C-alpha cells in the first residue's frame, strides 16, 4: 500500500499546527474547532496514514470539557493537535474510527461526556467520574457491568479472574464458548486503578518522577524517558550526548530483558521446558546489566529530567559489553531450541491471528502491530534522543499469529543487541546532566517513546504558573487490549493463555 500524506486533508479544515515529538507549543496555537470540524479532521486523518496517539478530555471553560486529540502521521513524521469543546454529549467517533473506541470510553468515564452512538459504552477503569453528570454510574464497582452474553442450550460462559492461578496482575475475562471454541471474549480491567493521572496534576514535584517510574513496573525506563522528554521540552534543557546514549542503552536493555522473558514464558505456556528455563535465567542477565548501570534491575533512578542519574566508567562499559555478548549468545542458543522444535511451531502457527486490516483499524502498536506487517515504530517514525542519530532497523513479520509475535521479538532482540554493541563502543564524553529550568506556562508537549511493548505517549499541559494542568499517559496496552479480544475470536479456549502471553499487555499501565 502506498502511503499517502494525511496533513493535506486536515488542512482543508483548519490551518494546522504540525510539530514534532518533544516540542513545546503554546496552548493558544492549538486550533479550537467545532465538534463537526474536529470529527471530520480526525476521521480524514486516520483514514490515510495517521493514527490516533491520544484522545482525552480536560477541564475547559464554564464547566465544559475540552477534548484534545493527538494525531501522529508516520509518513511526514509530524504530530498535529486538535481540540474542541463539548458538554454533555457529542456524536461518537468509534463507529467510523475503531481506534477511538477505548479513548471514548475513557472520556465518558472520566468526564461524564456521552459519545452518542458508541457501541460499547461501559467503564474501563470503574472509578468515580472527575465531573458530575448523568452519563455513567457515579460509584462503579470493578467488574460489575453488563457483559455481552450469548444464549442457547449449547453455549456456555467461562469467567476467569480477577484472581488468577498464577502470579499475574488482576483482570477479568469473559468467554462466550461453544464447547472448546470461543465466540467472543470480553476483557474487563480497572482493578489496578490508582489515579496516577490525577496525582500528577499540579506537579511536577518530588514524587512525580517516582510515580512515573512505577506507572507500569516493567516499563520504568520507557515511561520515565517519555516523562523526562516532556519536562525537558517545557524547561528548555538540552540533553548532553552522553546522557542520550545512556538513555538509549537503558531503553534497549529493557526491551531485551522483557522480550527474552516473554519468549521464555511463551515456551512455558506450550509446555516446552528447556527454553522456558533458560530464558528465565537470561532475562535476569539482561536485568542485571541495567542494575550495573544504576543499581536497580528495572532502571529506577536512572532516567532523570535533564539527563541520567548515574554515570558509567570506562571499565564498566567494557564489562557491560562483555556480559551483553555472553547473554546474547545464550539467548540465541536457547531460542534455537525453540525455533527448531516442530511441536512448538505447531502450537504457535495460525493461533490468534490478526489481519493487517484489523490491526490498522484497531490502531494496534508495538510488536503486536509489527507482527501484522505494519511498519510502526516510534524509534523510526518519531525519533528522539539517540535514535535521531543511530537508527535501529524496523522488524516486521506478516503473518499476525502467535508465531509472528514471538519471531518478531527475536528479530528485535538481534537489532537491539547490535545497537547496544555500537553504543557501548562509542560512548561520548561529557556531562550526564543538564538541569531543566522552570517549565513554560500555558504550553503543551507531546512526547513519544517506543517502549518494549510499543508506543508510549505522554501529553503534558501546563497552566499559567508552569504546573501540570493535565498530564495524559497512554500506555501501549491501552491500544492493544482490544486486539487480544479480537485475536481470540474463533480460537480454542485452551489457546487463550498462549495468545495472552504473545501480547503480554500491562494491567497497571492500562489502569493507571
Amino acid at each position, binding site marked *: 500500500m502506498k502511503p499517502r500524506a494525511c496533513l493535506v486533508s486536515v488542512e482543508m479544515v483548519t490551518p494546522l499546527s504540525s510539530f514534532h515529538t518533544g516540542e513545546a507549543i503554546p496552548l493558544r496555537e492549538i486550533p479550537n474547532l467545532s465538534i463537526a470540524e474536529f470529527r471530520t479532521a480526525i476521521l480524514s486523518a486516520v483514514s490515510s496514514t495517521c493514527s490516533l496517539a491520544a484522545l482525552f478530555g480536560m477541564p475547559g471553560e464554564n464547566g465544559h470539557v475540552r477534548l484534545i486529540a493527538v494525531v501522529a502521521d508516520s509518513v511526514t513524521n509530524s504530530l498535529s493537535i486538535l481540540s474542541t469543546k463539548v458538554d454533555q454529549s457529542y456524536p461518537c467517533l468509534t463507529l467510523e474510527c475503531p481506534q477511538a473506541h477505548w479513548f471514548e470510553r475513557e472520556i465518558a468515564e472520566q468526564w461524564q461526556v456521552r459519545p452518542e452512538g458508541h457501541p460499547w459504552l461501559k467503564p474501563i477503569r470503574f472509578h468515580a467520574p472527575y465531573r458530575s453528570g448523568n452519563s455513567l454510574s457515579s460509584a462503579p464497582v470493578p467488574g460489575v457491568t453488563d457483559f455481552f452474553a450469548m444464549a442457547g442450550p449449547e453455549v456456555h460462559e467461562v469467567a476467569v479472574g480477577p484472581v488468577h492461578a498464577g502470579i499475574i496482575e488482576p483482570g477479568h475475562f469473559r468467554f462466550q464458548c461453544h464447547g472448546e471454541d470461543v465466540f467472543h471474549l470480553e476483557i474487563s480491567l480497572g482493578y489496578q486503578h490508582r489515579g496516577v493521572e490525577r496525582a500528577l496534576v499540579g506537579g511536577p514535584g518530588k514524587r512525580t518522577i517516582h510515580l512515573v517510574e512505577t506507572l507500569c513496573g516493567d516499563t520504568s525506563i520507557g515511561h520515565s524517558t517519555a516523562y523526562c522528554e516532556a519536562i525537558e521540552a517545557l524547561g528548555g534543557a538540552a540533553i548532553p550526548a552522553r546522557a542520550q546514549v545512556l538513555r538509549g542503552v537503558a531503553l534497549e536493555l529493557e526491551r531485551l530483558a522483557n522480550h527474552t522473558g516473554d519468549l521464555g514464558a511463551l515456551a512455558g505456556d506450550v509446555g516446552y521446558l528447556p527454553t522456558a528455563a533458560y530464558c528465565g535465567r537470561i532475562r535476569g542477565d539482561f536485568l542485571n546489566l541495567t542494575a550495573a548501570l544504576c543499581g536497580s534491575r528495572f532502571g529506577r533512578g536512572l532516567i532523570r529530567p535533564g539527563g541520567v542519574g548515574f554515570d558509567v566508567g570506562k571499565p564498566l562499559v567494557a564489562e557491560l559489553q562483555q556480559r551483553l555478548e555472553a547473554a546474547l549468545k545464550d539467548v540465541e542458543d536457547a531460542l534455537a531450541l525453540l525455533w527448531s522444535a516442530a*511441536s*512448538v511451531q*505447531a502450537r504457535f502457527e495460525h493461533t490468534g491471528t490478526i489481519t493487517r486490516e484489523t490491526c490498522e483499524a484497531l490502531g494496534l502498536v508495538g510488536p503486536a502491530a509489527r507482527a501484522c506487517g505494519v511498519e510502526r515504530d516510534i524509534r523510526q517514525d518519531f525519533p528522539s534522543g539517540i535514535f535521531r542519530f543511530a537508527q535501529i532497523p524496523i522488524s516486521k513479520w506478516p503473518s499476525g499469529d502467535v508465531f509472528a509475535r514471538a519471531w518478531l521479538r527475536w528479530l528485535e532482540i538481534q537489532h537491539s543487541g547490535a545497537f547496544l554493541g555500537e553504543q557501548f563502543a562509542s560512548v561520548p564524553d561529557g556531562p550526564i546532566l543538564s538541569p531543566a529550568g522552570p517549565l513554560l506556562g500555558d504550553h503543551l508537549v507531546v512526547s513519544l517513546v517506543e517502549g518494549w511493548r510499543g508506543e508510549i505517549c505522554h501529553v503534558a499541559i501546563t497552566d499559567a504558573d508552569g504546573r501540570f494542568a493535565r498530564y495524559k499517559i497512554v500506555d501501549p496496552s491501552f491500544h492493544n487490549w482490544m486486539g487480544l479480544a479480537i485475536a481470540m475470536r474463533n480460537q480454542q479456549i485452551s489457546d487463550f493463555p498462549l495468545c495472552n502471553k504473545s501480547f503480554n499487555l500491562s494491567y497497571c499501565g492500562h489502569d493507571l
Partner: protein
Amino acid sequence: MLAMVLAPLIQGVINRTKAVAAGRVGQPLLQTYHDLWKLLRKGAVYSQTTTWVFRAGPVVGLAAMICAIALLPFGAFPALAPFAGDLVMAAYLLALARFFTVLAALDTGSSFEAMGASREVTFSALAEPALFLGLAALARQTGTLSLTSMLGSVSTAMWMRAAPALGLTIAGLGVVFLAENARIPVDDPTTHLELTMIHEVMVLDHSGPDFAMIQYAAALKMWLLGAVIIAIAVPWHSGNPLLDGGCAIAGMFGLAVVTGIIESSMARLRLLRITQLLVAAIVLSGLALALVRR
C-alpha cells in the same frame, strides 16, 4: 505393597529428569512424599454448593486405585488377588475412579471444572479402547485373562516370536500411559493456566487430605500403567525373585526417565490434536491384536 510405597517416587524421578534437562537443580526426589505429608496435616475446605459426591470423589478414587494395584503382579511377585479376567476388573476400576473424579468436579458447578471433566471423558473414551486392545493383544498372545499369568509369561522367547506385536502394544500403551497420567504432550502437569488444564482443573476445589488422596491415587495410577508396560518391555526372568523385583523397579525408574525426557523435548499438543494422538494409540494396539490373531 512395594507399589504403595514407591509410587510417589516415580514423579520425583520424572521431575528430576526434567530439571537436569533444563539445567536446574530441581526439587528433592522425595518431594511428592513431603507434599502428601503436608496435605494430610491440613484441613479441608468445602464449598457450600457441593454435596456428598464431592467428598466421595477422592475416597472412591483412591480405593479403586488400591484395589487395582492388588490385581497387579510386579516382577516375580504375583498379584495379591489374581483371578481369571482380572484385567477387565483393573481397567474398570480405573474407569470407576475417573467416573467419581468427574462427578466430584461437576458437583462444584464451576465452569472450569466442567470444562476439565468434558475434556477428561472425551480423551479417556479414546484412551480406554487403546488400553483394552493392547491388553487383548497380550491376552491372545499368552492365552490367559489374568494380569498375573499374562504379564508373568511375557518372556524373551515370546519377544523372539512376536516382537512386532509386542512392540506395537508397548507403543499403544505408552500413549495411554502419558494421556492417563496427564503428562506432556497430552496435558501439562506443571501449568498454572486453568484454561489449558485437563486433569488438574478437575481437582482445583479439593484441598487438604482430600487432595492428598487424589495425588496419591494419581501416583498409584502411574505405577499401575507403568508396571504393565515394564512387564512387557523387560521380559527377563532369572528365577530369583529379588533380582527380578529389582529389575522391574529399575525398569520403572527407566520409564520415569523416558517420560521426563519426552517432557523436556517437546511442547504440548493443541487440545484438538490430542484426539488424533489417542486414535493413533488405538490403531497401534489394534494392529498388535491383528498381528497376533493371524
